[in-house]
């Protein structure tokens, strides 16, 4: 995995002391402020989403950072700035897909996890969680992605289709097959 360079939080571009910002500088400042605000509001959720896809915390952070960097680079080209969050979420999913196609460098299950940080996490036995997540990661990437979007983000079918760039019928058939396979992996034979 590439070494990461952790930078300081992006500072807002300061106006020139004497003449004030020109149009280009003001645009840059606006983009930076908007992207930064979006990051502060949504980065945690997106890192969690990427983590579910990759099973790798550092990789998840990488993907999210690059997604926001891409948003910043393309800010001027966005036709609808109001859809920036959807854009960056799609970028995160794209990034996860690309990351999954590269050789894995860290075993998913072997990576030590931080202690549960919420009552919700503690409420579920660690073994149950590991079993389900282990099974989830045995699914083909696209099946896992559909299930994560459906049951973690509770996204409706149409939103999943848009986020993944696939048809709704494909979402349905993929979810169906994924659930059958997951059920079998978990030995659901009650």
């Amino acid at each position, binding site marked *: 995995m590439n070494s990461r360079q952790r930078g300081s939080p*992006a500072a807002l571009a300061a106006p020139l002391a004497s003449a004030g910002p020109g149009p280009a500088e003001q645009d840059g400042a606006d983009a930076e402020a908007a992207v930064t605000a979006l990051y502060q509001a949504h*980065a*945690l959720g997106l*890192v969690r989403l990427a983590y579910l896809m990759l099973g790798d915390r550092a990789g998840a952070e990488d993907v999210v*950072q690059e997604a926001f960097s891409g948003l910043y680079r393309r800010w001027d080209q966005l036709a609808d700035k109001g859809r920036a969050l959807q854009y960056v979420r799609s970028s995160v999913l794209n990034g996860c897909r690309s990351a999954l196609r590269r050789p894995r460098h860290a075993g998913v299950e072997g990576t030590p996890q931080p202690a549960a940080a919420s009552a919700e996490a503690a409420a579920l036995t660690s073994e149950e969680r590991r079993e389900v997540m282990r099974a989830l990661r045995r699914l083909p990437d696209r099946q896992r992605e559909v299930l994560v979007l459906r049951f973690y983000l509770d996204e409706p079918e149409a939103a999943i289709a848009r986020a993944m*760039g696939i048809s709704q*019928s*494909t979402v349905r*058939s993929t979810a169906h097959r994924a659930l059958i396979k997951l059920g079998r992996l978990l030995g659901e034979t009650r």
Partner: protein
Amino acid sequence: MNTLEDRIRAAAHAAAATVADGSAPPLSLPQPGRRPGLRGWRGRPPWVVPLAAAAAVLVVVAASILAARAVVPGQTVPDAGPPLAAPLPLSADGLPAYFLAIPAGDQQAGAQPGNQNEGAGPIPRRLSSHETLRVVATETGKTVATATLPGYVTEIAASRGAFFAAVVRGSAATFFEIRLNGGRTGTTVTELPIQPDTAPLEFMAASPNGSKLAYSTLVMHGAEGDVQNLVVASTTNGSQREWLTPARDAQGSMGLMNWLGDGRTLAFTWTGRSEASPSSSLRLLDTAAPGDDLMAGRAVLPFVTAAGEFDSYTISPNGRVVVGTTFRPGVVNGARVPVGSVVAFSGAAHTPTVLYRPLLGVATGWMAYCDDLPLWIGTSGREVLIDCYQQRAANGAKAVVRVVLLHDGQVSYLPWLAATGNETTAFPGLVAIMAMPPPYQSPAH
């Protein structure tokens, strides 16, 4: 918590919660001067703009229906004209006269042998003691006969002369043959001498003359979890052969399958670790050759191609044409192939031809695409029957299903088959496509 969905939801939320509040690292943006992003901030190529976020998504369809008109490869189809009326434009291949359908109201979610009272969706507490299937005339869409099976029907398939059903009763699946009587007004249902199978099964396909049934099973493999095996059983004497997934391929999975016209070669899709894995492809297996290695055959066509990316394929019975629907766009003859396009790969060189592109029209906000897999493909691959959808993207309303016949460069709409859009159907030569049970259809929003 007693449903699979609950377990997934809880596990996912718990896993995500291990990413503690406030623990996301600070944002680090590219420095000025490195825009407009010829390279990423760490020297990687810029991400492709996600399809869903592209400002100019023009996947649009006219509100009217498709009509027979020439589809010129590399060009989009103009707005539709009036619907095609009977008789059907059949070539020498000929659409099958009848097909089998599981009516939508009778379906239950994902019950499998050994899973008697529960399925993959909201749990039905009791399996149906019987299910009634309908035999449909392709030319009219009307039910000509019905067949009642003594349990929950988990898979159906069709050969040239008969239909087949795998029926779950108790903890095992048993197999039945369904034949139309001479007057085409009733059916005879016969239990086959195939050993009941207690393993979960899926993707059943009947050989062209109905002498064999192929299906995949899921078998627990100890600490490695499950693997899929292939079973081919004789419908006449019940003898079976089994092919096993090698340990090195344990993370892969079989998909839909169909027999070639020779009655011995079985085609199936194989998905490796992901659709982009090198092993993900359409495969051919000679079921008459010795051995039990599921991967002993050969890969025909990978999922990732220049014409687009696919996650499943069907092959014509003569083995010369492979058909799939793109889930990621591609390029054929210099023209873009959008998502939801039907592409045929012909000959040894797998030359791509676009059989259908989603229509582009004046109105925006409409989506049009075809299903992953055809309902039926003709012997030579010149005819493909497939469900295609029109949907207004913005409100997420349920898509309108059109049954479309792609033939010799033309696109025909078969409105009399529209009612089958939500059913599981089995056309001869192709395994049934499972329709989605009601719990998985998201409400309009």
